[in-house]
Structures are given as C-alpha cells and as structure tokens.
C-alpha cells in the first residue's frame, strides 16, 4: 500500500515538473520572438538623390544670351562645346562649380563619416566629367540621374 502511494506521489511530481518545463519552454520561445529586433528597414537613400537633384538646379555665374545657367544647362552646353557670354568655356565653369558644390557638401576625411566620393557624368556612355576625392571603401551609397540627350550622372559616396 505504502509503495503504491509513494509511486503515485512520484508520478504526480514528475507530471508537475513536466508541466513547468513545457510552460517555461513555451514562454521562452514567446520571449525570444518578442525580443528579436525587427530587421532594420532598408532606408531609401534620400540624401544623395536630393543632393543630385539640388545641385543640378544650382545657378552658376555663366551667362548666355538669356539667363544665368544652371549646372544642368551647363552640362548640355558643355556637351555641345559652347561658351559663356564672357568667353569662358562652359566645361571649365562646370568643372569649378561642381568641385565647389561637392567639396562643400560632402566633407571627406578619415575621422569623418564620409571617406570619399565619386561624381561621374557620362554622355553616350563616354566620360565627360569625373570628380573624385578620398578613399574608396566597400560601404557606399549612390544615386543615378538620367538626363535627356543620353547624359547620365552617377554620384557615389563612400562611408
């Protein structure tokens, strides 16, 4: 009788232990799922896109018969080999304007977040202008802007 009772008690203890273990496992799984951080959403790189769109609108000091030319218009004029009203070559004005714009906007350095950049303007897949500064790293973001007359602008920033 006594042995039977002890056996029954042991069985109940084992059952209780099993319930506790199962509940603990379920809770741990639930906790694991709830604590797992949602994967960081891929943030669209708005900053580089905006930069390209903004610098294309920048008004340079090169004037034609109608107006002061924006960088976008200067790219078209440089492609056709035109000159500013004061006789300067549009390509030279474009080059200096772009250097100024990019240098002031993206400060490059080893102790800075931006390690380097590349700006490439292609016409009919041939290089018209290429600007680069700093180091090329594996961590980069870029933007491409396609203008009429087969003009493509690629800007890449290395972090």
């Amino acid at each position: 009788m006594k042995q039977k009772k002890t056996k029954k008690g042991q069985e109940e203890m084992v059952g209780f232990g099993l319930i506790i273990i199962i509940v603990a496992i379920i809770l741990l799984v639930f906790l694991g799922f709830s604590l797992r951080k949602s994967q960081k959403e891929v943030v669209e790189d708005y900053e580089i896109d905006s930069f390209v769109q903004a610098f294309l609108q920048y008004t340079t000091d090169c004037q034609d018969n109608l107006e002061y030319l924006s960088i976008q218009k200067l790219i078209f004029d440089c492609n056709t080999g035109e000159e500013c009203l004061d006789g300067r070559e549009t390509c030279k004005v474009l080059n200096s304007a772009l250097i100024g714009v990019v240098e002031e906007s993206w400060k490059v350095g080893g102790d800075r977040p931006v390690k380097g950049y590349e700006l490439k303007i292609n016409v009919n897949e041939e290089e018209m202008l290429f600007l680069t500064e700093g180091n090329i790293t594996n961590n980069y973001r870029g933007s491409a802007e396609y203008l009429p007359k087969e003009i493509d602008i690629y800007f890449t920033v290395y972090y």
Partner: protein
Amino acid sequence: MCIMVMKRKSDKRGQLKIQQMAFMLMAITLFFVLVGMFVLVIKFSGLKESATELEEKNAMLLVTKLANSPEFSCGGAFGSNRINCVDADKAMMLKENMHKYINFWGVSNIEIRKIYPKADSDVICNLGNYPDCNIIKMRPKEITGYDMSNFISLCRKEFSGDEVYDKCELAKIMVSYEKK
C-alpha cells in the same frame, strides 16, 4: 464502526488532494505572474528608445517631403515644377508667420542653411538683411535634440541691373525634434 473509520480516512485523503491542487495552482499562478512581470519590465525598458526611433524615422520622412510641400516649394515661380526646390522668399514670409504654424509639422524647429556658395560667417536671416544672410531659422530657438537634414535648392528672384533672374543656391533643410 469500520465504515465510519474508512469514511474519515477517505475524507482526509480528499482534503489532502484539494490542498495539493490548491498549492499547485498557487505555484503556477505565481510562476506566471513572475514571468509576466519579467516580460513587462523588459518591454517597458525599450519603450523610450522605440519612441525616439519612431520620431527619428518621422523626422526623416518629413524632411524628404518638406521641401516639396506647398509652404516651401518653388512651385511654378521658377519655370517648370522643380523637385527639392525651396522658394527662399516664401520661406522668409513663413518665418514671419510661424506663430500660425505652431504644431503644424510637429517639430521643434526648421532651419534652412546655405551650403554653396559658402559664406564667411553665419548670418541669421531677417527682413532687414535678407538675402545677404545664410541661415533661415523658422523659430528663433537653437536646434536641440536630434535633427535630420536634406539637400535642397534654395531659389529666389535676384536683380542684375534692370533684369530679374532666378538664382538658385545649394542649401540644407534641417528638421529638429526635442529629445524626450
């Protein structure tokens, strides 16, 4: 007599069983309460961080669309519709009427800072010195907390002799939120 003794014995056993069940129920309840408290503590400890994260994301989304909102955008004033173009004259007028826009965007401050051509020193714009200045602060207070910025083209009408032409400069629009 024998039946009475048997009955008492089985009553005692039943009581014991009930007691056992009550203890087990209490233990399980206690266990669940402890685990629940543990989960709650962990969840609430990250609440502040997630609120900040959410606000940062909000600032990023706002800054991308702010330049193209009717209150800032160039619209048709500078030829065809431009993207990421802010009308500086509009921004100045908005700055003067900013009291009407409190809590409109839900940010603590909006600032437009010219980047190129580079100015020698920082000059905050007001109606007296505009356009010979490089920072348009929508509210006079300093940018505190955290901020998000985006490149824009800051355009205005400029005089050259008798002619008026469109002058666009490179600038950054900054949106700031108070740290909670």
